[in-house]
């Protein structure tokens, strides 16, 4: 018999019961909650006269609707305000810990989980948010769920699920200078497509992944959902353990020692067999920019906008043509000639301290180009913001003409006041370039923090290596 994959181990250790057809009841260790996908779940819970099964398994935070500007006056949009106060009330009623809008620890749910050590190896972690994939960076089985499932987890601490197939994406070699985790995951999505991972749990492996910091691994796992997979995971190693040590909810003392021993087994066995294996050479990956309205529509920074006619499949050809029309682009244009109107640096994909350091390094000494009407930096959490300020990154950004904001999801999905207007083009470090994602008619290009900062100062897409060094 072959060995177990990391996914097998995580799955097997959480099965409460299994039906004949493979449908299983799996135990959930951690439930993260935000204001958008939870109100109907709490309402359902109350309607049925139920209470949360294990209150202490839950951590809630308001992130999608919160303003990134001064919060002293609260939220001006009454609809957004109601959603946030509904979360506050629900958490209060059931005794669930919430980092409210004015808590210094408040931030994007996927940033604060790891930051607080509420995300640990070997856990099952769910949240009513597709980017729950992020937590897989810690050797945890984590995936997004809908609101009915949020209610199910609250009521039972379990979910009805079926085991997925397994895929391993191995990236060997090393990444070139200036190429990061965002470029890596965009290149992977470009390679396998947005439904390439559907039905799979993806494990990222290989020397490139082992060399990535925990924050970079989070970026990688975060966008696994854009490749269609509900969860992405990375094996536990010294980086994982180093990151977690002394975090608020991480084990301490003797438990810390015992936990480390157990965690060292959260790797795929050498003889484990995956349903699908994909191999990439790290050296071949360049900085990436999306050109269309799906994350798979991606090219290297030195590439040109592709021609739909090059596609043999008719549906794909039409999709590409529609994307070009929406994006206001023409085939054959070098992406480096495309000008941007706005720049957004932040989100659960790229709103952590390392992302801000990279962006600040590029922006240092430069000025935001005159054709860029807004370049904003939105830290992923209050603690990220505080750290950045301690390092003086806020000053680097503001001197260069960027706006330095309060933490939240912000213009990744434009549920608050931060959005694109019709026809505006944005270099964004977020995760989705769907039509209307950042505002109706808005045109999103997904890039790394380095490329976003470079686009802000050049006014168009550019390889940061081609910028004049002013640092």
């Amino acid at each position, binding site marked *: 018999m072959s060995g177990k994959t990391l996914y097998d181990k995580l799955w097997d250790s959480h099965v*409460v019961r299994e*039906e004949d*057809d*493979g*449908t299983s*009841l799996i*135990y959930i260790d*951690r439930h993260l909650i935000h204001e*958008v*996908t939870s109100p*109907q779940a709490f*309402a359902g819970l109350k309607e049925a006269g*139920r209470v949360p099964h294990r*209150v*202490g*398994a*839950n*951590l809630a935070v308001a992130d999608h*609707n919160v303003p990134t500007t001064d919060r002293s006056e609260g939220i001006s949009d009454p*609809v*957004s305000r*109601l*959603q946030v106060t*509904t979360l506050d009330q629900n958490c209060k009623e059931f005794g669930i*810990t919430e980092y409210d809008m004015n808590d210094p620890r408040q931030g994007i749910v996927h940033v604060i989980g790891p930051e607080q050590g509420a995300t640990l190896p070997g*856990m099952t972690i769910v949240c009513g*948010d*597709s980017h729950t994939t992020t937590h897989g960076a810690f050797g945890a089985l984590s*995936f*997004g*769920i*809908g*609101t*009915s*499932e949020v*209610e*199910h987890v609250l009521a*039972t*601490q*379990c979910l*009805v699920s*079926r085991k997925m197939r397994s895929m391993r994406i191995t990236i060997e070699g090393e990444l070139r200078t200036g190429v990061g985790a965002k470029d890596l995951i965009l290149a992977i999505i470009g390679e396998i497509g947005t*439904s390439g991972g*559907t039905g799979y749990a993806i494990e990222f492996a290989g020397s490139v992944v082992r060399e990535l910091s925990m924050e970079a691994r989070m970026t990688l796992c975060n966008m696994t959902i854009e490749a*269609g*997979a*509900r969860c992405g995971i990375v094996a536990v190693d010294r980086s994982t353990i180093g990151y977690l040590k002394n975090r608020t909810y*991480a084990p301490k003392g003797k*438990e810390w020692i015992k*936990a480390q021993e*157990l965690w060292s087994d959260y790797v795929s066995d050498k003889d484990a067999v995956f349903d699908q294996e994909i191999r990439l050479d790290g050296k071949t990956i360049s900085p990436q920019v999306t050109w269309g309205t*799906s994350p798979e529509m991606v090219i290297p920074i030195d590439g040109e906008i592709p021609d739909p006619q090059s596609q043999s499949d008719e*549906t794909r050809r039409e999709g590409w043509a529609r994307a070009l029309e929406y994006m206001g682009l023409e085939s054959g244009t070098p992406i480096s000639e495309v000008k941007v109107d706005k720049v957004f640096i932040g989100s659960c994909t790229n709103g952590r301290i390392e992302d801000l350091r990279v962006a600040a390094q590029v922006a240092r000494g430069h000025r935001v180009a005159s054709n860029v009407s807004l370049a904003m930096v939105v830290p992923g959490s209050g603690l990220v913001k505080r750290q950045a300020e301690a390092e003086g990154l806020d000053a680097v950004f503001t001197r260069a003409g960027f706006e330095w904001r309060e933490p939240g999801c912000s213009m990744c999905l434009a*549920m608050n006041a931060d959005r694109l207007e019709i026809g505006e083009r944005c270099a964004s470090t977020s995760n*989705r370039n*769907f*039509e*209307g*994602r950042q505002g*109706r008619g808005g045109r999103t290009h997904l890039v790394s923090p380095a490329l976003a900062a470079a686009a802000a100062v050049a006014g168009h897409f550019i390889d940061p290596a081609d910028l004049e060094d002013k640092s």
Partner: protein
Amino acid sequence: MEPFRTVKGIVLPIDRSNVDTDAIIPKQYLKSVARSGFGANLFDEWRYLDQGEPGQEHSNRSINPNFVLNEKRYTGAEVLLARKNFGCGSSREHAVWALHDYGVKVIIASSFADIFFNNCFKNGLLPLALPDDVIDTLFGAIKNEPGYMLEVDLESQSVVTPDGTQYSFDVESFKKYCLVNGLDEIDLTLQHKKEISEFEALHKRKMPWLFTDIS
């Protein structure tokens, strides 16, 4: 939840791949704390020419005549036909609520995104996958036949066209059982309360740190 048995309904053809949940229901409507009332905003950005806002009166909005849903012949559609990777993107169940509120009961596509697929079953909607060539055939047939209807029978797992052609589809037996009987999954799970407690106790012994309360 209403039990799902058979549906015979007009088919709305959305001839696109990768129809994402942002397109199905744009973000501004996710601010609602209710579970219904999303039907008028299904495909909002494709359906209307003006910018939609929550709570707005829909009767005076500017309709996009070029969007298929606005064509008279598809009024009252209960079956939606699309191409691969339908429902990709966010986990928002609001997408399913919007389809449900609009009156859609069955979605036929060549493939679905996982989270959306699961969400459908929790709301009495049946997402079913058919091969690409069958999807092609159906799109072609609809174009040429106003009032084109499909009959979907969950019990026998079949889709029947007006000319009597029958296509079978797969569905997981547990999901089918819940849908056919309109069962509440939470009730079903709570029947295993004892097993859950036993598992929990064992799990806690092995990894007590997983049970540190968030406080």
